[in-house]
């Protein structure tokens, strides 16, 4: 039953799926980077405030 795809190059199946997975990851990492950037921006500004605050 599965004989027909035994003749296909074992790597070929993963070509298409790699494109899809990498595509999904691209979107997810894009938003993660934005989130990290915003997070870093606020932590940075907090640190600045800390420095200026009287000890």
């Amino acid at each position, binding site marked *: 039953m599965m004989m*027909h*795809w035994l003749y*296909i*190059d*074992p*790597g*070929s*199946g*993963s*070509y*298409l*799926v*790699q*494109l*899809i*997975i*990498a*595509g*999904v*990851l*691209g979107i*997810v*990492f894009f938003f993660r980077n934005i989130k990290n950037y915003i997070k870093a921006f606020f932590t940075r500004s907090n640190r600045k405030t800390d420095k200026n605050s009287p000890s």
Partner: protein
Amino acid sequence: MKHVEQLHSSYRDPSGFMFKMEGVYYRQVNNFFKKDFDHFISSGCYDELVKTGLLIPHETINENLTGSADWYQTLKPEQLQFVSYPYEWSFDMLKDAALLTLNILKKALEKGMILKDATPYNIQFHRGRMVFIDTLSFEIYNEEEPWVAYRQFCESFLGPLLLMHYKKTPLQQLMLAWPDGIPLSALQVLLPAKSRFSFHTYLHIHLNAKFNKKPKSPNKQTIRFSRKKLNNLIDSLEILIKKLRLPPHTSTWSAYYEEAAERSNYLTEKKRIIIEWLDKIDSVKTAADLGANNGEFSYLLAEKKITTLAGDFDPYCINDLYNNLKNKNNQNILPLLVDLSNPTPATGFNNEERPSFLSRCKFDLLIALALIHHLAVSKNIPFSKLIELFGLITTKYLIIEFVPKSDEKVQLLLQNRKDIFTNYNSQEFEKYFEKRFKITSKAPIADSGRTLYLMEKK
């Protein structure tokens, strides 16, 4: 012409092969792989990987030792002390091997190269850490093409790690059943349903498996991959693998030494006797400590500069030992999963690709402490068979502890079973072992009732 023995582990690769000549292992690079190999060296990829300790260093020998027409280069890699396989590694050893592969892939990409395969057999435990040994795995990177070894990585590294993580139990035996990696279709059904809710696991296993079932091949020319896409794929695999854990477990023998230490001066006395004997047999360079537990005695051997294989059948003990060795940077001990009642068989094509555990064993000394009763009583293996086994592992010396039937640990083993071991006593033990070994010293261990023997192979 000198005798050249080609190793069966590398004949699948047309780029080159490993061979042995006069006891030294070499790697031949074939003309077929010339372009990629030259780029590997000239791009600085080799230097970078060796400098960071990720790849095994080699010496270049400008001589065609095999006489082969396809010869391009001969390499003499730093020689390994002992070759081990993923089904003999603990969870963290496999995890570190997976992270090492991804790390090497990232560094190779920076130099314009990519890994053409991703299998744990390209990695060995060498001088206290995991190192990459296949110098011929690097080929020139084409940015438009995806990673050819992606599925292999998912099946041979990620799959076993995920199964052990989700099932919370060591499952190294599965890698013996599927030496080329656990197929995605099998992983999909073996993993629990909740694994689908892990974003990265869903992508790399479940979605991947779904697509691999469909026999359609895309037109590679119209769909292009990119470096950014590949980096995302590597980052995702790395994020996932770093999260995987084998939860700690109180295994059969994990508290053995704490418990043993309570028994008067049993451990101190045992150590004293062994140190005394080790000074007597100073020609020993390699040793196997089988039934090593947390490696207490392997450390003793390592201190004497003896390269020691610390084997135990308990995957939790071996995992703890591996992590301790990593922290202490101890280079003389190799932790390994070994079940002496069922040592690793030979696997692969013709049963020749990966040799059996026993055929890889050649040690100057074997120490078998508090082990004999597990083999003779728990596993019903007669002394006549045990001397054969020990005789195969050691080439010179054997330090063995005899645990009498009256011992509380043996009584524990006999608790729920019929005592059929009428021949299990020190007289019978000595009678059989003297057939294969010469007993050179014998010492009772404090007041434990146990006896240590130093024997020499006849």
